[in-house]
């Protein structure tokens, strides 16, 4: 079974968030990238745009289809990982670290309270994988 880092929080749409002060860095989990298979293309928001919690912040295409990326928190985009735009394979090879996607300046840090910790996410994934 996958290991999900303890210093991240997770939503049920398989996105993770790393919080540093008011900044939230977001990516997709190792479980998600494995489920999608080889990622072929990605579209991310522009810096200064606003992302809503539980709404799409980007889109990915793999050989299996197109998938919207659902944001765990709301905020203004302050940084986008240009490296993955140049080499999309990083999302498959290192999803929890260098495969990060965007950084938001959070507008409501209380939204973090609704997210799962690594243990809760692990259980959630286990349940989902069982039904697959």
């Amino acid at each position, binding site marked *: 079974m996958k290991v999900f880092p303890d210093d991240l929080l997770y939503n049920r749409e398989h996105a993770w968030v790393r919080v540093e002060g008011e900044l939230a860095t977001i990516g997709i989990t190792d479980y998600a990238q494995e489920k999608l298979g080889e990622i072929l293309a990605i*579209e991310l928001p522009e810096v200064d745009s606003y992302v809503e919690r539980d709404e*799409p912040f980007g*889109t990915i*295409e793999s050989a299996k*289809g*197109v998938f919207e990326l659902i944001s765990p928190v709301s905020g203004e985009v302050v940084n986008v990982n240009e490296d993955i735009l140049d080499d999309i394979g990083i999302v498959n090879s290192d999803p929890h670290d260098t495969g990060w996607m965007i950084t938001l300046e959070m507008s409501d840090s209380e939204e973090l309270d609704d997210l799962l910790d690594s243990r809760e996410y692990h259980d959630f994934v286990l349940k989902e994988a069982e039904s*697959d």
Partner: protein
Amino acid sequence: MAIDEAIFRENQRTYAPPTLRFYSWSPPSVSLGYFQSTCKEVNVEACRRYSVDIVRRPTGGKAVLHENDLTYAVIASERNPLFPPDILGTYKVISGCVAGGLSELGIVAEMKGEGRSNPDDFLKAACFSSPSRYELLVKRKKICGSAQLRSKGVFLQHGSILVDFDPVKTCALLLPQDGDQTQLAKKLHGSVTSVHEQVGASVSIENICHAVKKGFEKKLDIKLVEGCLTLEEESLKLRLMNDKYMNDKWNMEGKVQDGSGNSD
């Protein structure tokens, strides 16, 4: 496209029962996959000359010429027991339904497993030339292409069943154009088939639609009930038409301006 996306978005909110839609296209159109580049995949000038519209799908995959095809859309929750929760499993089940429909017409179609085949650049650009994701082959030729969009626990699958196939026109409308057109058309003819070719006679789109509907009902052991759009779906459809699917920015560049869709 706007209707399919409206039903898909509403399903994310309402968890309504699954929907199966059938339609054909007027005027004829080329539909592009979500991430495809218009200028790299479509001969825009030739489309104008032939009065063929260009529209971008919310689903993935390759370019498709919709002229003599029956398009279907399946919209359902990932957790609906009619479909397996895994992604490829839904392709497999839906392909089984379509294969059942084709068998009603006397066509024996088999499923191609995972992965893609044709290495040829042009053949890769045209959706029908590269069978993948449990798509259907008849005598080793592709007859149906499909692609999905997934978000918030709901999937939309588009599929196109070829009623008739014109490899020369397909070659003229889809890029690249730098090869020998006659050779490319021949190759495409060798890897793609249609209902008309297999039945050996003309079959009306209504009859194909009826057969495929029956295929879904038999395979899934369900009775399909005709419905119409809810007020919310109707209103979202109009918004999506105006802001997205009738907008060149979306169709040509893949961007929407007001955040109503799934792009920036």
